[in-house]
């Protein structure tokens, strides 16, 4: 099939009423979790993973993808109106978005955020369609050593870009890999770390793990420290930016799109870092950088475009290599694995319905989001007023029933509560959970490729060095590790000096 036939086929799949409904539900839930500060897209996707178990894989992925890019839209609303980012990706939007709202320009700020997101989201889907195929063709030449090395690089990048201590992030990644070893060994069928518990023979389930770590622990943390919510009392009018606003914003939107898209492809925090870089970039390019932070529309347009474009770019390594670049993509990979589907170089050929259906649904979803985010702004403002004390029991209930509905197992529910408590203590102790979840999903594939590589090479580690792609990936991996080590020693020295003086 040619390119256009594929797109038409994608429209046939995504245009089916049931898939349109799931796409709408996805973007609606995405916007909702983007608006609500108490729960993030990773938490929402993990809450809905059990639901996807009961529906066809195409509909499931269309809905989960919708939650991901939908949350990028919704996150800006709280940044602009409340000065609290709904998502980590919208932190920088607070700077100028909130200032615009205080000056009575909440409408254009929300409008340009929605239009910028729409343009970026749509362009990034086009980029995704063009890039996935060539990358998948290159990946056809990859063997186990290349996949193992690339996964190591992906994990290291995620830990390298962690917000807190890199050592702690690495501990989490290793812990995640070790957790994935629980159950039967894939080569010898020997039981590992099951402690004689029959329910653990198939390993720790992804759903109890993520719902506990991301759902339950989020509630436990928020119960400890409720989020203050004061909505700015301003009239929201002129949602359509005027010509001057567009002139100021169009180039930041396009630059943010390019930047976000390519950063989104890289493993790590593309969607989080790209708005920050876009903001710095726009400030540097601006003729009046002093206006940034006081309500410059470019400071909203660029970063909002960047975070949406990054969400499109993030699908590329997942769909072409089977390597998720961030926690959301890891959850999507988990959802596919629940249905027995493993993305990789053959993904598009084996599952054209899934690939083209999802990609085209993202065009449709972006259109739906524009409609949801402009006329329905007053509704989202109302949603913002829902107190957390009403929401948290519902989140807990969804976790409890969600896990139970997948396996009808109360053991899995208990396991989820255990991971929830563990997640609480880990978060409080400064450990990030994203590397853990990512490593848990990648763990079995990493072990398989590592052991296959050793068998192929007759036990020689040189297979990871002499093969160019594997060698190069591992070289970058070790360089990043070394760099972070040097940085931490330097930081320690300067801190010791500061304490001494």
């Amino acid at each position: 099939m040619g390119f256009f036939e594929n797109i038409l086929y994608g429209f046939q799949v995504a245009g089916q009423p049931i898939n349109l409904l799931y796409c709408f539900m996805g973007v609606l839930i995405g916007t909702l979790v983007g608006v609500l500060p108490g729960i993030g897209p990773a938490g929402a996707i993990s809450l809905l993973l059990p639901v996807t178990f009961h529906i066809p894989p195409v509909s499931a992925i269309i809905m989960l993808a919708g939650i991901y890019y939908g949350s990028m839209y919704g996150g800006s609303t709280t940044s602009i109106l409340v000065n609290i980012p709904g998502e980590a990706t919208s932190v920088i939007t607070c700077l100028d978005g909130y200032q615009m709202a205080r000056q009575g320009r909440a409408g254009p700020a929300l409008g340009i955020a929605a239009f910028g997101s729409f343009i970026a989201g749509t362009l990034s889907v086009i980029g995704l369609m063009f890039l996935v195929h060539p990358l998948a063709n290159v990946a056809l030449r990859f063997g186990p050593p290349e996949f193992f090395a690339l996964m190591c690089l992906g994990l290291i990048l995620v830990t390298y870009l962690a917000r807190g201590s890199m050592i702690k992030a690495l501990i989490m990644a290793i812990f995640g890999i070790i957790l994935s070893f629980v159950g039967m060994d894939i080569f010898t069928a020997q039981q590992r770390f099951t402690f004689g518990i029959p329910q653990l023979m198939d390993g720790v389930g992804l759903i109890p793990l993520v719902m506990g770590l991301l759902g339950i622990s989020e509630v436990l943390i928020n119960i400890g420290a409720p989020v203050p919510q004061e909505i700015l009392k301003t009239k929201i009018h002129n949602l359509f930016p005027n010509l001057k606003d567009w002139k100021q914003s169009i180039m930041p939107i396009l630059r943010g799109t390019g930047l976000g898209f390519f950063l989104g492809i890289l493993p790590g925090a593309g969607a989080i870092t790209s708005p920050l870089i876009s903001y710095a970039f726009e400030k540097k390019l601006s003729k009046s950088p002093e206006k940034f932070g006081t309500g410059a529309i470019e400071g909203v347009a660029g970063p909002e475009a960047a975070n949406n474009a990054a969400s499109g770019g993030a699908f590329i390594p997942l769909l072409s290599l089977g390597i998720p670049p961030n926690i959301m993509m890891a959850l999507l990979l988990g959802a596919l694995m629940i249905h027995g589907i493993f993305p990789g170089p053959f993904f598009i050929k084996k599952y054209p319905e899934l690939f083209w259906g999802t990609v085209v649904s993202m065009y449709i979803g972006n259109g739906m989001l524009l409609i949801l985010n402009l006329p329905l702004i007053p509704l989202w403002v109302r949603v913002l007023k829902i107190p957390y004390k009403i929401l948290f029991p519902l989140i807990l209930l969804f976790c409890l029933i969600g896990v139970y509905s997948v396996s009808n197992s109360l053991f899995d529910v208990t396991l989820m509560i255990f991971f929830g408590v563990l997640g609480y203590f880990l978060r409080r102790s400064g450990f990030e959970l994203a590397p853990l979840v990512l490593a848990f999903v990648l763990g079995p594939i990493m072990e398989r490729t590592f052991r296959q590589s050793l068998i192929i090479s007759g036990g020689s580690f040189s297979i990871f060095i002499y093969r160019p792609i594997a060698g190069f990936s591992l070289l970058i991996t070790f360089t990043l590790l070394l760099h972070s080590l040097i940085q931490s020693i330097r930081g320690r020295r300067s801190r010791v000096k500061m304490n001494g003086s």
Partner: protein
Amino acid sequence: MSILFLILSILICLGSVKMGIGKLSEPGPGLMPLGGGILLGILSLADLILRNACGLKGEEIGFKGARWSRLFLIIIILFAFTILLPILGYLITTFLVMLLLYKVIEPQKWWVALLGAFLSTILTYLLFGVALKTLFPEGILSF
């Protein structure tokens, strides 16, 4: 937490050796867990040293201000759900658990708690029990 990870790493290493690490040309089921255990040990030790010797606490929120009583109550209520579900069935257990969550953790007015518990029980039953055909235990009262 790092001290716990250090202890865990020792246990993992011991368990991995027991499983059999095999040869490099024929890796056994314990090889990767052993590697993971060693790395976990080294990293936990490094974190402990940085934290204690140099006072680097990273991004810790810490436990200051943690509402322990509410936390324990939530955990107890969640565990109660797992115990009561097979005995009382889905509808009664969920209603009771939701009522407790609404009334005890962040106390609401009675009518809010009752309405919230009732609506959430019915709506989740319709979604999971009816639409997604999840088989919930009926319990002693058979509903």
